[in-house]
């Protein structure tokens, strides 16, 4: 099923956080797993992320934030996707995300939160199992 078209992932750094070790490692791991990965680079606004996702026609948005601003930025991305009536992109988040923020993130529509220590293989499997587009 996935042979015809590679899974396309937008890896994004919303906000002002400059910690990109994690997202770059994820990019490398997803590419090794055969996915097409577009990395936005640092300091993206939610608007820029959603626009890039539309332009690149991605299946997945993977955001990373270690500054604590996820509480504003992640739900804002979901809000903008809803405004554009996009509901077939799988959106995931990672970084230093306190456990107690989990329910609010899920409630906003973030499919999964990956925190430090996650095996990149688990992220690959999660994407394969939860894609919304065919």
């Amino acid at each position, binding site marked *: 099923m996935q042979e015809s078209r590679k899974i396309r992932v937008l890896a994004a750094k919303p906000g002002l956080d400059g910690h990109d070790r994690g997202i770059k490692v994820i990019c*490398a791991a997803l590419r090794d797993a055969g996915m097409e990965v577009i990395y936005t680079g640092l300091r993206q606004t939610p608007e820029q992320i959603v626009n890039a996702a539309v332009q690149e026609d991605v299946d997945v948005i993977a955001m990373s934030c270690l500054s604590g601003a996820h509480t504003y930025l992640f739900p804002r991305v979901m809000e903008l996707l809803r405004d554009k009536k996009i509901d077939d992109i799988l959106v995931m988040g990672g970084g230093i995300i306190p456990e107690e923020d989990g329910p609010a993130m899920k409630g906003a529509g973030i499919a999964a939160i990956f925190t430090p*220590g996650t095996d990149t293989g688990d992220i690959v499997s999660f994407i394969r199992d939860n894609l919304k587009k065919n």
Partner: protein
Amino acid sequence: MDDKQKLADLKAKYDAAVDKVLKKMPERKAEFVNTSGIPVARVYTPLDLEGFDYAAQLGLPGQYPFTRAVQPTAYRGRFWTMRQYAGFGSAEETNERYHFLLKSGQTGLSVAFDLPTQIGYDSDHELARGEVGKVGVAIDSLWDMERLFAGIPLDQVSTSMTINSPCAIILAMYLAVAEKQGIGFDKLRGTVQNDILKEYPARGTYIFGPRKSMRLITNIFEYCTQNVPQWNTISISGYHIREAGSTAVQEVAFTLANGIAYVEAALAAGMKVDEFGPRLSFFFNSHLDFFEEIAKFRAARRLWAKIMKERFGSTDVRSQMLRFHTQTAGCSLTAQQPLNNIMRTAFEALAAVLGGTQSLHTNSFDEALALPSELAVQVALRTQQVIAHETAVCDTVDPLAGCYYVEYLTDEIEKRAQDYIDQIDRMGGAVAAIEKGFIQKEIGDSAYRYQREIEKNERIVVGLNKFQVKEEEKPKDLLKVDPTVGDRQVARLKELKGSRDNAAVAQALAELKTAAEGTDNLMPPILKAVQCLATLGEICDTLRAVFGEYEMAVM
């Protein structure tokens, strides 16, 4: 020669015995290699230090090339400065934490700024939304800076400030606070990070391009040499390079290559090496490979001494002394079983002390989960105090000198770092290597390799890929930044703009713009703007209009 023969005979006997043992019981791994790719032998003897020249390679503490220490008595005279990086929320909340730390026996302050401050945006800027007061304290104007240091006489503490792109502005605010406290600039002790080059491949808080930023940096060198003589004008940082995933060798190499670029920029600006050389300082990571880290600090000291003396012709030994701050490795901490982080941090801190650090930050055990809580910070500080007062490792200087393994590693790290520096020189120096993406790629490759080693269980992280517990109890009492801090900062900005002399602000900013378009030192006009209560964002916007903003090419 006789001794050497005796030793060779002993070694031959030993190797034969090892062969027998190996037939019965192989070693844990086929080969032992450290993170820098340096092979680690089964045992080290004087045979591994062929041609070792004690005087040339080590000297005594306080003697060139300063491998053993920069200061003759080292910790027998005075322990390192215990300096915990701290800042969150508003200036008032952070000020409270500083008073707590000083009361707990901390000997220096270290200011963490929030990301909008570090990237030159006021708290009411669109891009600041959600970030105000999160990873550090929010500073918009001199008002905030005054509140940050309320009740702390600036001639009684040394203050380190982690600020890079807007460094000149924050330093000017600090000077303005000192002036208000009636303290002369010559009494001020501290450090500004002011190290823009590592922001591009690691950490990410750049505003202007590297070449424009170099002017601001050398302006600070020049201004402080003349006006703030005890101030460390830069902290050339390997810490973040290592956190971004580099090896120990890469950390030394890329940091010193950046150092070379700063020296060259200051020379090009017309300064003499021994005018600014003594005020350069460094900042390294301390990771878990205990001996590799100790050797790394020693190798860095020796290499920098040689660079300053041989490459730049320094004749003042103070310029040749690599003085450094250390922070334990945040990236070595785990969110799983976080109490284990106390031990990791302790070993890393011990390595930093055995490597001769001048000041130290120990990480708090809850840092993979949140900003450190007060209890976690106290345990981290106590870790340093236990090393200083209870372990007796500070009673003799550089106790591991002469250890065959440590000297072998010191030589090897120096050699491999020098190879990288040569390669960077051939590319045209650190700025060119960054612009080409070379440093970024080297760091990224190392980071991915490290992650793969963990995932393949070739590298064991206790509690993460071995010795896990099923149902973990999460630590409670994590620090939560008051969510109203953003609104409070915005309200304060409004109040500021309504009550200051806005004509004076406009005048000061216009003068700054003219200076930026010319070649004058920018510190005096920035200081003036700060004193008129121009905001950090306004001053940065003025500079953005002249210097432009940097866009990093994405690899």
